[in-house]
């Protein structure tokens, strides 16, 4: 008879292998939990999920792994599938079922845009009693995922679920949430047009959150000079003790934002999303001027908060940061002053043209701050034709923004 503790440890190990973060304390909790909830299948699954899964996004991996891992657990004597010798579950020889389950979970870890479809599956699988069956239903899935009309498919599933009751309803709306969160974490570098469209859809709630974040920051910066009169009045309540100090509200800050966004092929997605995100929060700044560039500067145009491509730019040109900086320098009188925060989005890949980092330094002297957002992976900074380290010396901050979440964080630093 297999030891329950070892069995559970192996399960946790595999869960970690599937990308779920599980701490030691949580593993202990899980042991207490099943000793409290018992070993019946459904309560045990929920007990493990409650203690091990702290993020609804991971629930999918969990259900899948549980279905395969404990496929034989209903009948404890049927132990033939699990070889007693395979102590370490990550070792390749850890038995057929386990390694297969890991593979299938990993397969799912790749950014699957149609998470709605994917999310509705695990329920079925969790319910299916034997491993082979669940393997079959996995087989059917890739077709669905490849379907271009993912939304239509989702609709079908929804209608089905309308008939089949509660559990599936739940899976769908958490699936939508999960899809949004997944796209937030997908690096821009891996975007295709499809991901970009999804990210655009997800932008509205992110912009809302961003606004909340910025407005909170502005509100917290309230404490200015001491307000003598109100402090004295407050002290009367306290018998004359000056325990409550009252402050005058600080004068509202003025930030003029000037944005330069590289929209050449390599960083097009991230730049567009950034411009649209800031366009949604423009009222927090006194003035926002948005520019797009490839090898020259052009004012960005928006239509209903969506960037539209300007005809002024040659889309097939190659990035030239140096020339763009000199164009900005020529227009400094109109654009740059002490209240200006200059935000540049780009990878600094200058196609070996003059970098003109000296110009950036001069520009930085005129502005309050220059912030460079870089959508590239850190390992690739400064490689090849990248002049990013030359620029990095001249800016106030170089902020990585590889996915939507990082971008949002980076932008809230600007404000």
């Amino acid at each position, binding site marked *: 008879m297999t030891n329950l503790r070892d069995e559970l440890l192996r399960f946790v190990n595999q869960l970690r292998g599937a990308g779920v973060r599980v701490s030691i304390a949580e593993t202990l909790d899980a042991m*207490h939990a*099943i000793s*409290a909830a018992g070993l019946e299948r459904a309560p045990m699954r929920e007990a493990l999920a409650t*203690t091990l899964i702290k993020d609804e996004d991971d629930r999918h991996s969990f259900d899948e792994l549980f279905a395969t891992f404990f496929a034989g657990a209903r009948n404890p004597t049927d132990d033939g599938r699990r070889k007693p010798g395979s102590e370490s579950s990550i070792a390749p020889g850890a038995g057929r079922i386990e390694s297969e389950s890991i593979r299938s979970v990993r397969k799912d870890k790749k950014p699957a845009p149609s998470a709605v479809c994917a999310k509705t599956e695990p329920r079925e699988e969790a319910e299916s009693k034997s491993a082979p069956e669940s393997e079959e239903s996995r087989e059917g899935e890739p077709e669905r995922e490849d379907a271009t009309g993912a939304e239509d498919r989702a609709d079908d599933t929804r209608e089905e679920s*309308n008939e089949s009751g509660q559990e599936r*309803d739940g899976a769908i709306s958490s699936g939508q949430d999960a899809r949004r969160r997944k796209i937030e974490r997908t690096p821009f570098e891996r975007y295709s047009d499809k991901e970009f469209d999804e990210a655009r859809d997800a932008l509205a709630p992110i912009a809302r959150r961003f606004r909340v974040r910025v407005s909170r920051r502005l509100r917290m910066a309230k404490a200015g000079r001491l307000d003598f009169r109100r402090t004295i009045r407050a002290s009367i309540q306290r018998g004359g003790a000056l325990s409550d100090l009252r402050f005058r509200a600080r004068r509202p800050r003025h930030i003029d934002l000037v944005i330069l966004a590289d929209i050449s092929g390599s960083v097009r997605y991230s730049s567009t999303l950034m411009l649209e995100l800031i366009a949604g929060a423009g009222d927090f700044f006194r003035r926002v001027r948005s520019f797009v560039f490839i090898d020259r500067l052009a004012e960005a145009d928006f239509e209903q908060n969506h960037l539209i491509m300007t005809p002024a730019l040659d889309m097939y040109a190659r990035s030239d940061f140096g020339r763009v900086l000199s164009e900005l320098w020529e227009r400094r009188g109109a654009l740059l002053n002490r209240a200006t925060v200059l935000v540049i989005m780009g990878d600094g890949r200058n196609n070996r043209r003059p970098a003109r980092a000296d110009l950036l330094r001069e520009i930085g002297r005129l502005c309050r701050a220059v912030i460079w957002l870089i959508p590239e992976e850190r390992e690739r900074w400064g490689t090849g034709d990248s002049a990013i380290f030359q620029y990095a010396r001249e800016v106030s901050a170089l902020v990585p923004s590889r996915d939507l979440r990082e971008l949002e964080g980076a932008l809230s630093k600007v404000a």
Partner: protein
Amino acid sequence: MTWGDALAMLVAVDITQEAVRAGLRGANYITNERVETAIFLALALEKPLLIEGPAGSGKTEVAKVLAEMLQTQLIRLQCYEGLDEARALYEWNYQKQLLRLQADEHQGMRWEDISEHLFSREYLLERPLLKAISAPRKVVLLIDEIDKADEEFEAFLLELLSDFQVTVPELGTLRAIEIPVVVLTSNRARELSEALRRRCLHLFIDFPGAEQERRIVQLKVPGLDERLATEAARFVGAVRRQGLKKPPSIAETLDWARALQRLGIKELNSDAIKSTLGVLLKHEDDRAKVESKAGALSGRSR
């Protein structure tokens, strides 16, 4: 520990899953296995329960039901931006301290004697967290919408949630007499820290399915025709899938069901829906969107 030992242990624990299920039913709370197990574990393991899910899916209700089930007091801490220790844990009662100070001075007491009283429990204003810790019997502590509080406050909660103790500098460390049942809810306005998640059991509550919602409606709006209840529940389910700004909550479904009942509506046709939609949807855009599809949505539900 073998499988058999675990089963034996299960019998030894006196909070049983059946008891929890019966208790929930007794408190008129309709739910599913997931929620039942999570509640049971929170009680059995004495760990805080973190509940996430869309607004209006009944997260806060869990705490209320728990209090009812355990026949105990519910202490609620509503989180908001800028919530601090003084509001959440304790504050010294300055006015009372000052009065005491002045009274003692008149009697010519020395500072040593005065200060001895001044920082005693008598002058401590208990806020929800301290109240929950120092309650003589088990209470339910609801920390509502923890995602609205600042990150610093979340960090401050960690000591309370893992050890059920708080430290007041002047008094020392106060340990819980009876470990309270702690329920935290979050709408995911921001990501909660890993540290907090690690200390809690996690439960995701989604909107109920059509069948579950029908049962809720029938339980809370007793006089409603069964067929109408079924149709209403299905319609609300369909409405929630339209990607609205604010999908209707369970409470709004109930309000709507009551409205239908009061208006004496027998059948859920598109006229009936249009005239009562304001109860269900609170945004003009949502309303327009659903109104244009009202026929199709209710047709699908038939």
